[in-house]
C-alpha cells in the first residue's frame, strides 16, 4: 500500500516537483472563473499532505484528522466572528497553535495504543469536537454554522472578494510553505526514523530510537498543518459548518489521498485535484451515482491498485522503461 520513502539524492528538489506550482499559477491567469474552485482544491491538497505525513509515512491509521482541520477552522472563524480578530495571518496562527495543543495533548495520550483502540480514540476525539461545535451554539452557530465572519485584507492590501483571487494566491503560498516543510521532514533522518517505526517498531526500540516521542512529534506537526488548512478553508469561504468535523468529510479526504497514492508526497497533489474536478463535472448531474462510484473506486483501489493513481503511473512507467530496453 505504501511506497518506500528514501532520502539522500532524492532530497534535492527535482524540476518535476515545481510543476504543480507552475501549473497552479497558470490556472490563476488562464481560468479566472475557476479560481474560487481552485482555491478549495489547494486547501484540500494541503490537508491531504498533512494526512499523508501520519498515514503514509508514520503509519498511524486515524479517522480523526479532521479534528485538527475542524478545530483550526472554528478557532479562526470564532476569532473573526466573535472576538474581532480579523487579521487573516493572526487567525491562521491561532488555528495552528490550537491544533498543535490538541495534537500534543491527545497524541501523548493515545499514541501509546495501536490498532482498533487507536482508531476508536481518534474517532471519539473528533466526535467530541463535533458535539461541542453542535451544542455551543453561541460560539459556533451550532447546526446553522458560523457565518458573519470578518476577514480583513492581507497586509491591509489584498481583499478577500467573491472572485477568490486573493484567496487563491494566499492558499497557493500556504501550500508551498506546507509542502516545503513536509518535504524537508520526510527527506531527513527524522523522516527515515518514521518509516522505521512504521515498518518495524521493535527494531527501532532495539537501536535506541525514541519511537513514541517521534510519533507524538509528527502527529503534532501534521495536526498543526491540518489546523492551518482548516483556517484557510474558513477564510476562503468566510464560513464554517459542522461538516468539517463529520465522518463523511473524513472519508472523502481519505478517498482523495488514497486515489492519488498514499505515502508519496505528490499523491496528495494528484488525488484531490482529480477527485474535485470529477466531482464538479459528474456529481452535479448524478449525485447518487457519484457517491456509489466513489465507494466502488475506493474498493477497486484497495483490491487492485493500492498505490493509487501515481502507483498506476509508476507501473506504466516501469512497463514502458522495460519495453524500451
Amino acid at each position, binding site marked *: *500500500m*505504501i511506497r518506500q520513502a528514501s532520502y539522500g539524492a532524492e532530497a534535492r528538489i527535482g524540476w518535476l516537483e515545481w510543476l504543480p506550482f507552475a501549473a497552479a499559477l497558470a490556472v490563476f491567469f488562464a481560468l479566472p472563473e475557476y479560481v474560487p474552485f481552485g482555491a478549495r482544491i489547494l486547501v484540500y491538497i494541503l490537508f491531504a499532505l498533512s494526512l499523508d505525513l501520519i*498515514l503514509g509515512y508514520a*503509519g498511524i*491509521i486515524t*479517522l480523526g484528522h479532521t479534528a485538527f482541520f475542524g478545530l483550526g477552522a472554528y478557532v479562526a472563524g470564532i476569532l473573526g466572528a466573535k472576538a474581532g480578530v480579523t487579521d487573516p495571518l493572526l487567525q491562521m496562527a491561532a488555528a495552528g497553535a490550537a491544533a498543535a495543543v490538541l495534537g500534543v495533548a491527545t497524541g501523548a*495520550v*493515545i499514541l*501509546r*495504543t495501536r*490498532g*482498533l*483502540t487507536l*482508531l*476508536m*480514540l481518534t*474517532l*471519539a*476525539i473528533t*466526535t*467530541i469536537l463535533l*458535539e*461541542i461545535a*453542535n*451544542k455551543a451554539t453561541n460560539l459556533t452557530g451550532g447546526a446553522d454554522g458560523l457565518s458573519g465572519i470578518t476577514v480583513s485584507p492581507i497586509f491591509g492590501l489584498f481583499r478577500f472578494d467573491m472572485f477568490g483571487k486573493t484567496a487563491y494566491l494566499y492558499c497557493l503560498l500556504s501550500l508551498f510553505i506546507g509542502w516545503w516543510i513536509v518535504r524537508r521532514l520526510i527527506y531527513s533522518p527524522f523522516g527515515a526514523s518514521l518509516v522505521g517505526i512504521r515498518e518495524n517498531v521493535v527494531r527501532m526500540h532495539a537501536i535506541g530510537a525514541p519511537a513514541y516521542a517521534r510519533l507524538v512529534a509528527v502527529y503534532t506537526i501534521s495536526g498543526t498543518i491540518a489546523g492551518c488548512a482548516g483556517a484557510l478553508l474558513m477564510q476562503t469561504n468566510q464560513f464554517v459548518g459542522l461538516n468539517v468535523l*463529520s*465522518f*463523511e468529510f473524513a*472519508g472523502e479526504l*481519505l*478517498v482523495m489521498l*488514497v486515489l492519488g497514492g*498514499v505515502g508519496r508526497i505528490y499523491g496528495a497533489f494528484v488525488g484531490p485535484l482529480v477527485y474535485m474536478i470529477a466531482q464538479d463535472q459528474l456529481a452535479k448531474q448524478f449525485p*447518487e*451515482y*457519484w*457517491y*456509489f462510484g*466513489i*465507494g*466502488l*473506486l*475506493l*474498493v477497486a*483501489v*484497495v*483490491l487492485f491498485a*493500492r498505490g493509487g493513481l501515481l502507483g498506476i503511473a509508476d507501473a506504466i512507467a516501469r512497463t514502458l522503461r522495460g519495453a524500451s530496453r
Partner: protein
Amino acid sequence: MRWGVRLEAFLSALVSVAFHGAAYGMILYVISVGLSVTMGMMGFVNLAHGVFAMAGGYILITALDRFGVPYPLALVLAFVLVAAGSMVLERLLYSRLYTAGDLAQVLFTIGLIFIAVATARLLFGTMQLLVNLPDYLKGQVSVLGRDFPAFRVFLITFSAVMVGVLWFGVERTRWGAMVRAAVDNGPMARAVGINTRRLFTLTFALGSGLAGLGGALGAEILTVQPIYPFEHLVYFLIVVAVGGLGSLRGPFVAALLIGITDTACKYWVPQFGAFFIYVATIAVLLWRPTGLFGVAHR
C-alpha cells in the same frame, strides 16, 4: 410531604430512563455482538458493520409494506437474507483482505459504506422510513402499575431471549467451543484441525444476520435511512471497543451502559448531548486499551 412527591417523581423518571435505556442498549448489543466476535476472531476491521443492520431494517420495511408479510416472518427474513448476503460478500471480497493490513481494511470498508449508502438512496429514496407495526405490538402495556410502550417491552424481552440463545450456543455447543478457540488462539486452533476459514465464514454470517435482525427490531430507535452506517458507526465501535474485542459479555455490559447513559443524558441534561459518553469512552480505553473484558492478544 414534598420530599415524598419529589422522590416518587425521581424514581419514576429513573424507571423510565432505565427502561428506554435498556431497550436502546439491547438493540446496540444485538447489532454489535457480531462485530465483536468477527473482529476478535479474524482481526478484521469491519467499519461497514452498520450496513448489515441498515439492510435488515430496509428488508423488514419492504417485506411489511410492499409484500404484506406478517411481522414475525419479516424479522426472520431480515436475519436470513442479511446473513446470506454477508456470506457472499465475505467469500468474494472480504476474504481477499485478511492479510492486507489495517489501512487497506479500513479503506475497503469505508468504500463499502459509500456504496451501501448510495444504493439505499437509489432504491429507497432519501428519507427515513417508518415501520408499520402490527396492532398487537402497538399501544401500551401495564407492568407493575406503570404504562410502558408495548413495542419496547417486546424489544427487551425478545432481545434478551436472543442473547440467551447466543450465549448458550457459544458456551455449550461444539460450534461455540470452536469459536472460542479460534478467538483465543487462531494458529493453535488450526493446528488441532479446526477449519477456521469455514468457521469464520459461518460466524461472520451469523454476526451479520444478527446485525440485520437488530437493525430490523430497532428501526424505531435507530431510524432506517441511507446515512445509517455513518450515523451509528461510532456507537457500534464504542460498544465493541469498550466491551472488548472477541468477548460476548463485554459488549453486553458496554451496550447497556451506553444505552442507559445516553438516555439519561437526553432526559436530564439534553444540552450536553452525547458528550459524556465520548469522554467516558476515551477514559475507559485509556485505562483498559483492550476493553473492559477484552482478550488481549492482538
